[in-house]
């Protein structure tokens, strides 16, 4: 699959920041403004299926780790969310996986890249889900609607700063203050010198 690496790095120059892994786990990191073009080129080169599109909120990555564990936050300055487009090249006649590729892109604030729903129609729902859960907007979809939650819902629950049990009921008792959930760090026995 080194052909893919060459094609990407040569064809797009700086827009492809890195390319790592091999086989099933290969992943490319691209700039958000070029994401759509790269994805279009990949689709033309045979990646006919968008297997998944998801995001990760890296704002608390590596914080409050237990002693002895270190992890550096890979997020560049000013970025918090990383989108992952997971592509697959499926041989339609023999039903074999000819290649898998994850395309990551770090986005600035909550401004996502351009939509790819015209390339793969299932991106429509996936992008709506990402807006719903993370509050990431896609640049050419200004009026995007929520998918899983209701329009009255305020906030985006999969952001790390949204408390898991902050409820916003449509009917029924209002204001149940979110209870503090104990984290592992709270319960870890501490040795006081």
């Amino acid at each position, binding site marked *: 699959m080194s052909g893919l690496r060459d094609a990407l790095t040569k064809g797009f120059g700086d827009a492809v920041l890195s390319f790592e892994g091999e086989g099933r786990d290969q992943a490319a990191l691209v700039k958000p403004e070029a994401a759509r073009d790269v994805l279009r080129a990949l689709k033309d080169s045979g990646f006919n299926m968008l297997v998944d599109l998801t995001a990760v909120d890296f704002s608390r990555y590596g914080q409050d780790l237990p002693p002895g564990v270190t992890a550096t936050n890979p997020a560049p300055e000013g970025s918090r969310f990383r989108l992952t487009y997971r592509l697959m090249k499926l041989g339609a006649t023999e039903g074999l996986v000819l290649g898998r590729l994850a395309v990551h892109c770090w986005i600035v604030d909550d401004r996502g890249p351009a939509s790819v729903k015209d390339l793969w129609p299932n991106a429509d729902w996936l992008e709506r889900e990402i807006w719903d859960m993370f509050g990431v907007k896609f640049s050419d979809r200004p009026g995007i609607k929520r998918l899983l*939650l*209701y329009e009255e819902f305020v906030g985006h*629950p999969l952001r790390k700063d*949204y*408390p*898991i*049990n*902050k*409820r*916003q*009921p*449509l*009917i*029924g*008792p209002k204001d*149940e203050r979110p209870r503090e959930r104990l984290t592992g760090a709270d319960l870890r026995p501490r040795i006081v010198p």
Partner: protein
Amino acid sequence: MEELTTPGVLTSQLDAAVGWARKYSIFQYPFVTACCGMEYMATASSHYDMDRFGAGFPRFSPRQADVLFVVGTISHKMAPVLKRIYDQMTSPKWVVAFGVCTCTGGFYDDYSTVQGIDTIIPVDLYIPGCPPRPEAVLQGLMMLQEKIQKQGRTVAK
């Protein structure tokens, strides 16, 4: 009619008769949303056979049903729908909370799940379990029948 509503031998007999008739002709409305639906299916089908208890006939219109089985997690998005279906049912009506999610929210203590349907509608019977085994459902059904028998003509709601 006057003497029928005053307490006496005849009325208590009538209460018993009405209760008996009602408890063995439960028309249920299965409000199936989630995993518990699998156990609901198992209970309603031939192996466990809810029909033995006179509750074998699901009516898929709330207006024709008298027991609302709320089967599965109710999310906040779903809650108004549940309330509306409850309101559409005619009295006398009973509600069964099937599974721990409907009883208390279960282990879904999160932003999207209603923490027990009794915060929205009144509940007559709770069947805990995640999901409850068919035997538990049948026991719950028998307890509901007991309750219906005791209520007689007095309907609380």
